[in-house]
């Protein structure tokens, strides 16, 4: 009897910790200065909060644990994918960053890639057409 009570209290504390993380995720989404930091705050904190809530419910009633584990694994797989696709789309369509942003590594990478592609196209334009003609004949 006391064993069950202790388990319920521990599970409730873990659920409360997860709910606090969900609350702080909402606070971060409301207070962060630009879209990218909002993506970061909203995604990571909700993932951790969700996992902790599911873990607490699993401690509460262990016979649900398998299905809760399934939900947790699915959240752990899908949440980074959606946030990554969203932040990449935001960078592609030019959502402005906060004024205190120091560096933009993705823009630097894309510039370097474009320069490299231009250089290789200038250097080997003749051989490119030759190989393409060979491939067509073969």
């Amino acid at each position, binding site marked *: 009897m006391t064993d069950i009570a202790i388990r319920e209290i521990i599970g409730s504390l873990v659920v409360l910790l997860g709910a*606090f993380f*969900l609350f702080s*995720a909402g606070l971060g989404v409301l207070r962060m200065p630009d*879209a990218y930091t909002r993506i970061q705050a909203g995604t990571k904190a909700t993932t951790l*909060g969700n996992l902790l809530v599911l873990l607490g419910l699993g401690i509460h009633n262990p016979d*649900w644990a398998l299905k809760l584990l399934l939900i947790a694994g699915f959240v752990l797989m*899908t949440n980074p994918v959606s946030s990554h696709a*969203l932040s990449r*789309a935001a960078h592609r369509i030019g959502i402005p960053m906060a004024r205190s942003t120091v560096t933009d590594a993705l823009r630097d990478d894309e510039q370097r890639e474009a320069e490299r592609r231009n250089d290789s196209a200038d250097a080997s334009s003749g051989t490119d057409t030759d190989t393409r003609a060979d491939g067509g004949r073969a």
Partner: protein
Amino acid sequence: MADALLTLSGVLIFFGILFSVARLAIGPTVVDRVVAVDMLTVITIALIALYAHISGRFIYVDVALVYGLLSFLAVLAIARYLERGL
């Protein structure tokens, strides 16, 4: 004791949803609104699981599972639409 803690977590989750809806309403760009919707879906999964525990019905966990399966597709579709059109 345990019920009071669960009620307090429900209140905290309610405030998280409230802040997220505020960002959904005032978000200056479309990406901010999509982030708010994404966050709402993940919070709702946790809330459905919590409600399944409080009401004592195991079948509601299936609702959370299906919601988690389907909700992230919307964000992927919107991200792809923003990037290069559908």
